[in-house]
């Protein structure tokens, strides 16, 4: 019966299924990391806005953060495109694992050190350097804990999804 329905789907029907998914994927991809990617690379597209902002940030290079947000947005797009299958749960778990590893790596385990340029009148003719260290290990630990809980939630959702599928298959056909 299902196969007959599949055969009967026209290009218009497929478009009705695929286009909302793609639009939803683009929207969620933008929300879940795309906007941060855009913000980080704003200086390349519009130097008059992004250049000043990036100079104000005490981050020497944004490559690590770019990868982080790129992976986040990419996985979100895949999750939205594959809705209704087991893959979004697996992808969510993969995203949690990757974000845990990347967060620990990018933030140097929760201790970040930045070199700040001293004021010109202070640094004239000297080699004075100012180091700013931010230690947010307790906050990072909470974020990692929340990621772990999120992973457990995704695992349970995957189990629930599979068991529901099994239940649908094994439903006695003689029952109404």
């Amino acid at each position: 019966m299902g196969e007959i329905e599949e055969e009967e789907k026209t290009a218009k029907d497929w478009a009705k299924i695929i286009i909302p998914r793609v639009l939803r994927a683009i929207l969620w991809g933008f929300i879940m990391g795309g906007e941060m990617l855009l913000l980080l690379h704003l200086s390349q597209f519009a130097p008059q806005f992004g250049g000043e902002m990036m100079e104000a940030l005490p981050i020497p290079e944004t490559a690590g953060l770019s990868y982080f947000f790129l992976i986040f947005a990419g996985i979100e797009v895949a999750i939205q495109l594959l809705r209704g299958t087991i893959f979004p749960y697996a992808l969510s778990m993969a995203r949690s694992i990757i974000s845990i590893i990347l967060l620990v790596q990018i933030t140097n385990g929760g201790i970040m050190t930045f070199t700040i340029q001293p004021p010109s009148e202070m640094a004239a003719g000297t080699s004075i350097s100012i180091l700013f260290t931010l230690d947010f290990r307790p906050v990072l630990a909470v974020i990692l804990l929340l990621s772990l809980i999120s992973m457990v939630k995704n695992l349970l959702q995957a189990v629930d999804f599979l068991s529901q599928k099994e239940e649908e298959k094994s439903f006695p056909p003689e029952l109404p």
Partner: protein
Amino acid sequence: MRQSIRALGWVVTISTIILFAFLASAVYSILQMAIFNQGIRIGDPRTEFKDGNLKLSMPITINNTGYYEINELKITTTLKDKNGTVITTNTTTIREIKRGDVRSEVHAMSLSLDDLLSRMKYLLFNDTEIKLLISIGFRYAYALGFQISVTNITMPWGAPLYGLTLKEINILGSNGTHLFLEMTLYLENHSFLDAGGALHLKVYNEKGEQIGEGIGLLYVPAGERQEDPVPMILSLTRPEAFTGKGYVDVSLQIPTYEHPIKLGRIRYG
């Protein structure tokens, strides 16, 4: 199962909102306190020289106008020589500053010249640079740690006995028991303090036998040089062994350093 999953979802969402709200308020609060209200103030450093100790003190005032407590505020100052050897260091700790509180402390660093010269005698004779490191660190809201370190602040060190050279000894005369002489030496006092002390001389004849010893006074004001001969009187312990030729071992005893500093050997006659 569904209820558990839903509960977990809510736990994650609510916890994330609380965490980011806390982070936003903490960051806003610290910026407000440190930058806009200038809650951490370090006054002008003062130097004091007393009893052979150089004391550097800085008044510090913390006005916690933020929403959270400040803990374990540590101010560390370290003096290092050009090679990175620590000359002196000191840390002032303020355990807790509750929100709304104002605390004032004086951070002091003491430098004993006796201790300094016993470890780094070259500072007496060579101009160099001394590096100052200042570090301020504290925990905010028990969760965020901040530390600002200013390194490589260089301060010139002027040697009090710069370029010291023993030039010559002229024997002016003798009365049989005492020897009157003058020693010409050259030095520049690049230090901010007056330099001086007692010059101790041990006189030997050309066979290497000690024949007497004596003392003279050296005084060079800060920023000046010594070129004039220093008059000295030596007591001859073995006048019969005095042949008019030999050598003198010269050492200097300065008030801030208990051990005599060997300046070298010079020939006479």
